[in-house]
């Protein structure tokens, strides 16, 4: 018996799958009391099919696994999951916006160029005030303050190319001495 815990990126829901190998390439997967008996065939690259051993129905799929993240194309839908072990790392990758709301770290939501910095160190800003204007693929994007606070660090400069999730600005809440600094990079 092997246990795999996946987080659905769409619903941010944890799913525990208990896997038992029955014969070679045939498995029983138990999800929330919903049991799937599947024969799995993987082709040379990124594709394969699953056969339901009860109904004999065959479902082709395409997939991609990278650093604990899986993308699966199945019947016209794309499903994205992250394995629980890598969840901590994944949260930063999945949704940088939500992460920004929780701490005073403002990250680049996409790779691109910094066009304009609208604030300076030590400035007191209100939530939703524009802080940075950046550009990617000829599209301009304004990045706003995630909360009320004081700018403590500006880690980017005008014209700089930044990667997705790069830390751009740090700010601290005004009415609290302590800020949550759960960042390790």
């Amino acid at each position, binding site marked *: 018996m*092997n246990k795999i815990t996946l987080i659905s990126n769409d619903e941010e829901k944890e799913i525990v799958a208990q896997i038992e190998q029955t014969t070679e390439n045939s*498995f029983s997967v138990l999800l929330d009391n919903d049991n799937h008996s599947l024969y799995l065939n993987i082709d040379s690259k990124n594709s394969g099919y699953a056969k339901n051993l009860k109904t004999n129905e065959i479902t082709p799929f395409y997939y991609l*696994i990278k650093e604990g993240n899986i993308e699966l194309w199945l*019947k016209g839908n794309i499903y994205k999951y992250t394995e629980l072990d890598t969840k901590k790392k994944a949260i930063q990758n999945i949704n940088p*916006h939500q992460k920004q709301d929780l701490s005073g770290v403002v990250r680049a939501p996409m790779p691109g160029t910094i*066009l304009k910095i609208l604030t300076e160190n030590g400035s007191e800003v209100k939530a939703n005030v524009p802080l940075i204007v950046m550009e990617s693929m000829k599209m301009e994007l304004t990045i706003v303050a995630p909360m009320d606070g004081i700018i403590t660090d500006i880690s980017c400069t005008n014209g700089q190319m930044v990667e997705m999730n790069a830390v751009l600005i740090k700010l601290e809440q005004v009415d609290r001495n302590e800020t949550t600094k759960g960042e390790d990079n």
Partner: protein
Amino acid sequence: MFQKVLIANRGEIAVRITKTLQEMGIRVVCIYSDADEKSLHVEYADEAYPLCGNSPKETYLNIEKIIDIARGTGVDGIHPGYGFLSENSKFAQACLDANITFIGPSPSVIKSMGDKILAKKAMSEVNVPVIPGWSGDITNIEELKNAASKIGYPVLIKARAGGGGKGMRVVQSSSELEYAIESASREANNAFGDNRVFLEKYIVNPRHIEFQIFGDNHGNVIHLFERECSIQRRHQKIIEESPSTALTPELRKKMGEAAVRAGKAIGYVNAGTVEFILDKDKNFYFLEVNTRLQVEHPVTESIIHGDLVKAQILVAMGKKLTLIQSDIEQDGHAIECRIYAEDPKNNFLPSTGVLEVYREPNGPGIRVDSGVKEGSLVSVHYDPMLAKLITYSKSRNAAIEKMLWALNHYQILGVTTNVSFLYDVINHSAFRSGDLDTHFLEKFDVHDSVKVRESKDLACAISALLVNNHNGVVKDKEIVNGKDAACTVSNPWSQMGSWRMI
């Protein structure tokens, strides 16, 4: 007849133009930036030359470099595609100066239509209705604010050199005006190298209807019917179709005649598009003339059963249009979806990466114009549009069903795209009933109508198995490398080795 033509563009449009040129027996010269060295348009071309660099200014917007290559390779003509230099009158002039035919209208027409204010003036002179607006000195904030309140909020800021939604902002109140003007003019400057913007009355919930026009050097101008492009996000079209469900035969005739009148008034030659907006009471207003081939031209090609690029080449060679207005019929229904590398669930932000899995749908009535293939890298440098998916059928309903099928069979992994989102829009009851306007995506939360994910559990089970297998393979490698002997106990699969391929 042209012997050799240079395409001053990249991506899907360069590929699409290449196909027609080669079909006509014309050799194709293409140009590429560093990032595009391995791209599809280079692969299709007969000759390909580097532009060196990656930024648009160094590459596809660099007139000097492009003209040098054109001269050096001895081309007869240059096709600009859309975007980049396609509506740059200096480029068209530079082609003429180098004795190379620019496949498009004359520099003076491009210049007059590129200036949105001059264009409006020219149109009102031939009784084509225009939207009330103001084009004064925007650095005078007081005057600007007065003008805006005189027009009445909401007002729309537009780039004087604009197009494609860039440098455009809707302003609801005077407090937002200054910041919006600043940001719009900066965006305009980046996109067009011209920071001038102007104000216009914002027409609430209009439909976007445009007419394809075509002129030759012999004074003929015809129209090839309309395209409705009301489904937009960030002022950019994502779904286009023809015919429009909004037009009656009478209104179609009236708008078509206005489009032809507009074309004739400015002496239009080659392919162009007259854009209108249509308000709730079916009044139409001139928006702009796009003096180039449009992204959505395949929609028109489908319903008239023609090749617009071929017609562009023939007209550029001085040939007379072979069709007269009364010969042209609108037959059947075509829909186009733009496939973008962007995340609809994250504010449509562009996404980048390698297209690890990329399979296009095909079948009768399905056309894919694409600039990528499996393994292509989607970079930050250029527009995130990967491809255009066009379906054609006898009726709108049939074209919709075909589009849903095609979207359902478009397999892309590695880069987040808008494919599922497009499915939800096309499948939405309001879209099906033809109840469209440019705020469709704000009015309807199409994410709520997400198609029934009947296979969710199966997807989860398969994903768990794939992750489990993958972990086993990774562990095996570690054991082989002698890095982690302890894990042999923790993972029973590791002892089985990797799976047997059947």
